C-alpha cells in the first residue's frame, strides 16, 4: 500500500493539542442519550420477558463493536508489519481511533456471565463429551484472560504508536528503515494474539451456541470479518472527516481514499473467499452434523433472506462498485459501501448467533434496535478522543500536496 511518496514536506510537529474537536457538545449529548436509551431498553427487555432477545442483542453488539475496535488496532499493527505508509501519521491515528472502546468491551464481556443461561445452551443442558471445554468457569477464565491480554497489548501499541519516535518513522518516506524496535515486537505479538484470542472468541461465544456443530475455518472466518469491519469503519470515518475538516485535510487527497478503497475491496474479496471455502467443503461433504448449521441459515426462510443480504452488503456491493479506480476515490460511493459494510457485519454476526438460539422467528425489533443504538453511542463516545487526534493529523498539513 505504500504509495509512491516522492517528495514530501517534513511534518510540522503539530499534534492533537490546539486543534478543534470533531464532535460538538450537542453531538456528545446525543451520544450519551443513545447510551442511556440502550441501557433502558436492555433493562426493559430483561424485565418484560424478552430477556433472551436482550442477551442475544447484547452478545451480537459486543462481538460487532469490540471486533471493530480491536480490528482497528490490528490494522495499525499491520501497517507497521508491512511498512505500508500512504497517509503519514493519519492512517495510524485513524486505525487506532476506536481503541478507546477496547477497555469498555473488556468490561462488557463480563456482562455475558449474567446472561450465560440464556446465551449458552450447554449451560442448562451440558454435553457430556464436551463438558471439559464447554463449562462456564473455564470459558470465562480463558476468554477473559485472552481479552485482557488483547486490551493491554492494544493500549500499549496505541500509546507507543502515538509517540514521537513512531511518528518520525510514520512520516519517513524510506521503505527500508524499519519501525522503532519496540513496535517491531509489539505489532507481531498483537497480530498473533489477535488470531488466537479471536479464534477462541469465535469458538466459545459463537460456535458453542450450537454445540453439535464445528468447523476448523470458523476462527479464521470470524476474525477475518472483524478485521474487515474495522477497515470499513475506518473508510467511513475518513469519508465523514473529509467533509468536516475543511479544504485542507489528507482525505482530500484522492490516493488516500483510493488506498482505503483498495483495502475495503481486497478484504471483502478475502472474506467471501473464506465464506466460500467453508461453504463448499460442508456442502460437498454432506455430513449432517456440519450441514444443519448451513442449511438452517441459507436454505430456509426467514434466515435465508438475511444470509443473502449479508453476502450482498459484505461482498457483492463492494466488489462490483469498487472494481474501478474512480469509484474508490469518490467519497459518496466509498462512504455508502462502507456504511453498508458495517450494517452487513452487524447482520452477519446476528446471523451467526441468533439462529442457533431462536430457530424459526427472526427476533428483530425495538429491543435489538435500541440496544444496538446504545452500543453505537458508547462506541463513538469512546472513539471521540482518538478521532480528535485523527483530525489533528489530517489537518497538520504534513501531506498537503499529496502525491503526483
Amino acid at each position, binding site marked *: *500500500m*505504500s*504509495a*509512491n511518496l516522492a517528495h514530501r514536506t517534513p511534518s510540522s510537529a503539530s499534534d492533537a493539542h490546539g486543534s478543534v474537536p470533531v464532535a460538538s457538545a450537542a453531538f456528545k449529548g446525543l451520544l450519551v442519550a443513545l447510551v442511556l436509551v440502550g441501557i433502558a431498553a436492555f433493562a426493559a427487555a430483561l424485565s418484560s420477558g424478552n430477556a433472551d432477545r436482550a442477551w442475544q442483542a447484547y452478545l451480537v453488539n459486543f462481538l460487532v463493536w469490540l471486533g471493530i475496535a480491536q480490528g482497528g488496532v490490528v490494522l495499525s499493527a499491520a501497517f507497521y508489519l*508491512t511498512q*505500508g505508509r500512504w497517509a503519514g501519521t493519519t492512517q495510524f491515528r485513524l486505525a487506532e481511533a476506536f481503541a478507546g472502546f477496547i477497555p469498555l468491551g473488556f468490561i462488557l464481556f463480563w456482562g455475558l456471565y449474567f446472561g450465560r443461561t440464556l446465551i449458552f445452551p450447554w449451560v442448562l443442558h451440558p*454435553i457430556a*463429551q*464436551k463438558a471439559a*471445554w464447554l463449562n462456564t468457569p473455564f470459558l470465562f477464565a480463558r476468554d477473559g484472560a485472552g481479552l485482557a491480554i488483547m486490551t493491554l497489548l492494544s493500549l500499549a501499541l496505541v500509546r507507543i504508536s502515538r509517540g514521537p519516535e513512531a511518528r518520525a518513522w510514520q512520516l519517513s518516506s*524510506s*521503505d*527500508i528503515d524499519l519501525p522503532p524496535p519496540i513496535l517491531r515486537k509489539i505489532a507481531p505479538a498483537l497480530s*498473533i494474539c489477535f*488470531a*488466537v484470542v479471536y*479464534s477462541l472468541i469465535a*469458538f466459545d461465544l459463537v460456535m458453542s451456541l450450537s454445540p453439535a456443530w*464445528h*468447523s*476448523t*475455518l*470458523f*476462527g*479464521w472466518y470470524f476474525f477475518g470479518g472483524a478485521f474487515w469491519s474495522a477497515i470499513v469503519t475506518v473508510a467511513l470515518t475518513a469519508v465523514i472527516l473529509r467533509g468536516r475538516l475543511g479544504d485542507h485535510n489528507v482525505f482530500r487527497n484522492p490516493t488516500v481514499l483510493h488506498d482505503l478503497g483498495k483495502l475495503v475491496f481486497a478484504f471483502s*474479496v478475502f472474506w467471501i*473467499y*473464506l465464506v466460500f*471455502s*467453508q461453504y*463448499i*467443503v*460442508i456442502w*460437498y*461433504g*454432506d*455430513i449432517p*452434523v456440519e450441514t444443519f448449521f448451513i442449511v438452517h441459515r441459507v436454505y430456509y426462510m426467514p434466515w435465508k433472506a438475511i444470509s443473502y443480504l449479508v453476502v450482498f452488503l459484505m461482498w457483492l456491493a463492494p466488489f462490483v462498485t469498487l472494481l474501478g479506480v474512480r469509484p474508490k476515490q469518490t467519497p459518496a460511493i466509498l462512504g455508502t459501501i462502507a456504511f453498508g459494510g458495517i450494517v452487513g457485519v452487524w447482520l452477519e454476526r446476528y446471523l451467526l448467533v441468533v439462529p442457533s438460539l431462536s430457530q424459526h422467528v427472526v427476533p428483530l425489533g425495538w429491543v435489538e434496535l435500541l440496544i444496538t443504538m446504545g452500543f453505537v453511542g458508547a462506541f463513538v463516545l469512546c472513539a471521540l478522543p482518538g478521532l480528535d487526534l485523527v483530525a489533528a493529523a489530517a489537518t497538520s498539513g504534513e501531506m498537503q500536496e499529496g502525491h503526483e
Partner: protein
Amino acid sequence: MAAAVQDASTPTFRDIDRSVLRVMEMPGTAYWIWIAFCFSLVGIAAALWTRQIYSGLGVTGLRQPVMWAIYITNFVFWVGIAHSGTLISAILFLFRTRWRTAVYRAAETMTLFAVATAGLFPLIHLGRVWFAYWLLPYPNERFLQPNFRSPLVWDAFAVSTYLTISALFLFMGLIPDVANAREQSKGWRKTFYSILALGWQGTDEQWRHYSMAYLLLAGLATPLVISVHSVVSWDFAMAQLPGWHSTIFAPYFVAGAIFSGVAMVMTLLIPMRKWLHLEDLVTPWHFDNLAKIILLTSLVVSYSYATETFMTWYSGDKIEQMTFHMRYFGPWGYLFWVMVLCNCLIPLLLFSPRIRVNLTALWIISIFVNIGMWLERFVIIAGSLAVNFNPSQWAYYRPSITEIMITVGSFAWFLGLFSLFARLLPIISMTELKEGITWLKKALRKDYAKAA
C-alpha cells in the same frame, strides 16, 4: 564490481546490465556436467514411467486402502512450490513492494517450471493415462463431458490456467529485458533475443499499454494463485475422510504453499547468488523480507495444525480422534513429528533479525522447510487414507522403487530446466532493478552498515 560498490552512486544502470548479462554468457563444463546429471535422472524416471504405463500401476506400492500416496504428494508439493513465484511477482507487485524486484524473475521462473513439474504427476498417477484428455471438455459425438462437480476437473482447469497465466506473466516481464540483452549480445543469442523481444523498443506508447497489461495480469494472477492451491486442497477436503475433510484446508494449504515456495526460492537463490556473483543485486535486505514471509506463513501453518487438533478433540468425534491419534502416535507418527519440527519449530528461529540476514542459516532452514512441507502432504494424504472409516481395511503403504525414482526424477527435471533458463535468459529483471535503483542503493548501503 566489488570495488565499485564503495561509491554510493553505484550501481548504475550499466552495472546492473553488466552483472546480469554476464550470467548469460557461455557457461563452463561444470555447468554442463550438472545439466547432464539432471537429465540422466529424468531419463531413468521416464523409463520407469513407461514401464508403469505398460504393465500397470501395480509396479507402485499403492494398495488398498492407500490409493494415493507419493505421486499426489509430489503434485501438491510442486504446485505449492509454484505459488511463491506468483506471490512475489504479482501480489507484492500490487503492494508495490520494493524488494521484490531482485528476486521476482527467479521466483517466477521457478513457478513456471514447478507447475510444469506438478502437472506431470496427475498424469503419472493415472491408471489409464492414455485417456487423460477425458478430463477436459471437448466436442464428441456422444456428448460425454467431464464431471464439473469433481475436484479433479477443477484441478485440471486451475492448474492449466495457472500454467498459462504464469507463462504469459513471465514472458511479459521478459520482453524489455531481452530487448536490452538483444542490444548487448552477439551471434545466435542476439537472434534469439531479437525474436523473443518482439521488436520492443521501449517507446512511451509501448510502455503505456505494457504497464497496464502487466498490472492487470498481476491483478488476475493474485486471486488465481490463491484459488489454485485452494482447489488442490479441496481434492482432499471434499472427501468425508477424517484428516481430509476440514474447512480450514483452503487457506491452510495456500499458506503452506507460499511457505514452501518461498523456502524453495531461498534454496535456489542463495547458492545462485554466490555462483553467479549477484551479491550486489540480491542483497540480505531481500532475504530478510523473504524470511519474514516464511515466518508468517509458518505461523499460519502452525495455527492450522493447532486448530485441526483442537477441533478434533472438541468435536468429540471418535473416528476423527482416532485418525489424529494415529497421525501423531501411529506407525508413521515420527513423520508427523519431523514435520512439526521442520514447519513449526525451526522457522521460529527467524524471529531473530540476525538469522534473517545470515544466508547460511537461511539456506539450511529453507531446506528443512522443504522437507517438512513434503512430509506434511504425505502425512495428510497417505496417512489419512491408511486409517480410514473401516478398520478392517486399515493398512499402511510403502513406496516402490518406481515411485521413489520418479520423485527424484521430478526434482532433477525441475532443477535442470531452471538451470537452463538461468543461463539463457535474464534470471534477474534488469528493467525493474533499474526502476527501483534508488532502493537498491539504499539496501546496499544499509547492509554494509549492518555488516560493520
